[in-house]
Each structure stands twice: as structure tokens, then as C-alpha cells.
């Protein structure tokens, strides 16, 4: 079984994000990290591939930099990676991203595509669904549990009220929530092996996809800001200030 997992390299969320002047694009340092939410998809892919005699291919779009983020996912155990890095893709919107990823996935071939529900830096939250449409496949989204069997995929799909059991025939696209599985930490051997695993670089021309710049960030304005109020150091009695405020607001 061929499992393809979409992953994204993002600027370390622990560092403040900045925007490039003029374009308002996110500044991407050469050292980026694997988006934390992708670790769940990679783990899910590895477990399903192992149980179904399959392989895991990573597909990623964006500036490669030193490729540390992709190496992190390879170190978890994925077999290889396809990376689409093209300067024409800077400032791409969700649809262009989906077109690029879908083209690479189609070329690679797949039984199951796994993605996170949204990236931590862009969070448009529609890329997996767009990929599924472009691949003429079902999109089983917001999965909290994934099972494969008899040529079908069955998931628990998160809903407002609880969850739905949803099933479809393979090939299919699944988006997973954090918590679908517990991601493994790469072992030392995994990290060493990752350095030798194949990373295939592709451009837009290789995939026959055109970048589309129909969306623009026109300007950035300061939001009306909220200012902090009273701050009290707790020396054992600070809870009383909370009680007073709750009384004042008529909550109690």
C-alpha cells in the first residue's frame, strides 16, 4: 500500500513571525521545522503502512532551506520525500498549494493521502479538501481514528456534537487531528538513517503546474488593541480580587 503524507516546513513557532516588506509574505528562515501538527499524520501513515505492507512517501512544498523539517519526518521512519521548491511559488495561496501537492501525489501514485487539518503558519484549513477534489477522491476529514481494511478506509470524523463513523473506498484522502495517534520521537538510528534517505526535488515545470497569484495581502494594519488592567502579585490573598471582580460583574 502506498501512503503519501503531506508535510510542511514552517518557521519555528517559538520565534516571533515577521512579514516581508512590500509583499507581506511570511519571512522563512533557512532553518525551518516540521509543523508539529504534521507529526500526527506521519505517525498515522507509518502505522498504517506497517500494518498493510506499505511505504510512506512525504510530499512537501515550500522553500527547502536546510531541509531540517523534512529530515525530522524522515527520521520518524518515512521512506522518502518529494520536495517542491520553486521561487515562483512564493506567496502561493491554498489552491496553488493544493494543485502542486496533488500533481506530485498523482505522479507518485497513492492508495491513501494523509494531511493535517491545517498548518500552524497559514491555517487556511482547506488544502486537504482541495487536494481530494483534484485527485477525484473522497476527503475523510478531521479524523480522530483511522482504520484500513478490505480496500476501504474508515474514520471517526470529529463533529460539533461528537463524531461520525465515515467510510469510503480507497484511494482516499484523510485529514487527521492532533491526538489521532501519539507521534514517536525519532531514535538516534532514525536520525542517522534520515540523512541517507532520498529527497527528490521538483519544480513547477516538472509538475506542469502554473503558479496563480489571484490573492494578495494588500496591507497590514494595527488592530484596535486591548490593554492590560490591574496586575496583582499573589501572596496568598489574591483570590479575593477575583471574587470582588466576579461580584462586580454579577457572575456571583
Amino acid at each position, binding site marked *: 500500500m502506498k501512503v503519501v503524507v503531506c508535510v510542511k516546513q514552517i518557521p519555528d513557532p517559538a520565534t516571533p513571525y515577521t512579514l516581508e516588506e512590500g509583499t507581506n509574505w511570511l519571512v522563512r528562515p533557512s532553518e525551518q521545522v516540521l509543523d508539529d501538527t504534521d507529526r500526527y499524520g506521519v505517525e498515522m501513515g507509518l502505522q498504517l503502512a506497517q500494518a498493510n505492507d506499505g511505504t510512506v512517501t512525504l510530499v512537501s512544498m515550500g522553500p527547502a532551506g536546510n531541509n531540517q523539517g523534512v529530515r525530522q519526518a524522515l527520521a520518524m521512519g518515512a521512506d522518502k520525500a518529494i520536495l517542491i521548491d520553486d521561487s515562483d511559488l512564493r506567496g502561493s495561496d491554498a489552491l496553488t498549494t493544493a494543485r502542486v501537492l496533488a500533481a506530485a501525489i498523482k505522479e507518485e501514485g497513492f492508495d491513501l493521502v494523509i494531511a493535517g487539518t491545517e498548518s500552524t503558519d497559514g491555517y487556511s484549513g482547506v488544502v486537504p479538501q482541495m487536494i481530494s477534489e483534484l485527485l477525484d477522491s*473522497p476527503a475523510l*476529514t478531521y479524523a480522530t481514528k483511522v482504520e484500513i481494511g478490505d480496500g476501504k478506509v474508515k474514520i471517526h470524523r470529529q463533529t460539533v*456534537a461528537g463524531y*461520525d*463513523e465515515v467510510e469510503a473506498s480507497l484511494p482516499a484522502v484523510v485529514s487527521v487531528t492532533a491526538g489521532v495517534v501519539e507521534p514517536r520521537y525519532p531514535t538516534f538510528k532514525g536520525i542517522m538513517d534520515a540523512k541517507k534517505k532520498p529527497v527528490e526535488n521538483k519544480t513547477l515545470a516538472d509538475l506542469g503546474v502554473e503558479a496563480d497569484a489571484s490573492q494578495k495581502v494588500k496591507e497590514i494594519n494595527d488592530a484596535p488593541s486591548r490593554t492590560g488592567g490591574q*496586575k496583582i502579585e499573589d501572596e496568598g490573598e489574591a483570590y479575593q480580587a477575583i471574587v470582588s471582580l466576579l461580584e462586580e460583574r454579577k457572575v456571583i
Partner: protein
Amino acid sequence: MASIWVFVQEDSGAPSSLGLELLTKARSLGDVTAVYLGAGGDSQFATLGEYGATNVLHASAGDALPSAPVAAALAEKASSDQPDLILFGQAYTDRDVAGRLAARMGVGVLSNASDVRLVDGGVETDHEIFGGTQIAVASASGSPSIVLARPKSFAAEPSGGNAPAVATLELSDAGSSAARVVESHVEEREGPQLGDAAVVVSGGRGLGSPEAYELVEKLGKQLGAATGATRAIVDAGWVPYAKQVGQTGKTVKPDVYIAAGISGAMQHLVGMKDSKTIIAINKDPDAPIFSVADLGIVGDVHNVLPKLIEALENR
């Protein structure tokens, strides 16, 4: 007059509150058609009319997962009717339908919008970035414009509109894209719900352990509040995703929001900073949460919360 389509999903037998928010916004932009997904009926359609829909396109997906068949039918209908804007909410099925529809029609999607305006040749949207400290103004060309707006961006208000004209949006089998809902499970929901509670108590990493979330629950019970959580402790598996407040979780605007052991990561602030009153308890005096808190207690939640709970119990 501009033609605006609004995606409204049925929730517990009635149009969802998110859908009513979007209809309220849409009627200020043009003539509104509600794309209604659910069993439907005269009273549901009347509600859509009261909030501004003059037309309803009614779709019922049966046991099919709606995204693929609804997107296919909408794409076809939109190609002939040419609406200027199709407005969705940032919600599960909305995202699924909008994503597939956009890919099918070859147009982009503007996600996470907090406001939307019609401009020459397309739309302009506002997006809160960097924890809501800044607003990015984005624009998109292409027709139709497809926008996903964050819940609670607009207040739902009835306009007193008449019953709308209802037409059926016929759905076809989605073929290779089809998926089936085998069974729906409703999880037991106790007490006030996050989205509409007047008081919300949330916990974060500062609680130190999953067991300490009990303090949040106890305080919540005393105040008749809904309980929430940060993404950090949801990802860590301490509490279910349904409790997540923030960019990738729920947006809340209660009268009082109590943040216990929450540092105030951008992703969390976006989901709660518009609460009327914010109370924060955190050990780190420099935690960003204090910059939005009306009352900040610099202290350990393990000391402050038990005393607060006790004081409330003794009242």
C-alpha cells in the same frame, strides 16, 4: 445588486447560529440566497427568511458525506447563476464544501476572515494575524469569490424578512469521491457549551498535569461556566479537542473569561481576546496573557484556584 450565497448547515433541527451570523452580514452586501444543508422544513426556511434570505437552495445529503456531492452541485449551479460571493463559516463541513468547490471551480478561498467587503472586481477581507494584534487586508480576484468567515465575527440579528422562495439543489452520486456516514455518535454534553456560555474557565500548560484540570472543572461548576483549554494541553491529550479555544479551536466571547495557567500564545489569544472581561492567573509576570487581562494574578494556579473555589463554595 450583488448576489450573495450563504452556506447554512442545520444543527439540532434548526439553522446553525453560525449560519444566522453569516446571513446577517450577507444581507448588508446584497441579495441573499441561503444554501441550506439539512432535513429542512417550513419553520427552518422561515428562519432563514427572517435573517435575510430571499431564496433558499435546499440540499439534503442523506447518509452521504456531503462535501463532494454538495460541492459538485454548487459548482454547476454557480457556473450558471454566477453569484458574486459565496460565504461559508470556518467550520468543519463548511471548510470541506468550500475547499472542494473552490478546487472544482478553479478559484481561491479566503480563509479565517473577520470581515468581508465587496470591491470592484472581487472581495476584500480582514484577517486577524499575530494573535489579533494586526489585521491583514487581503483581496482576491476570480469569480465567484469564496470566503470562510470565523464564527462570531458578526452578530446574528433578524431582519423580519418574509418566507423565502425555496428550490431544491439536486445532489448526484459522487462516484470515486463518495464517502458514507455509517453512524453518528453524540457525546454526552453536560452544562453550558463553550460557544454560548456567559462565563468560560480555561486551563493551560501551567496546570502542570492532566489531573490538575479538575481545578478548572470545579471552578467552572461553581460559576455555571463552560470549560475550555489551550491547544497545548489538547495536543498533549489532557482534554478532548472539543474544549480547544483559539485559532484552530473555538472562538468565544463570554462576559467573563478566566485563563488559568495560560501563557497567552497567539493561537489562543485570537479565540478569546474579545471576551468582555478577562481574568488571568499565571506564574510568569511577563506572560502575554496579562497584556489582554483586566485582572492579572501573578501566582501559581495550584495556590490561587483552590482558595478561589473554597471561597465560592462558602458563599
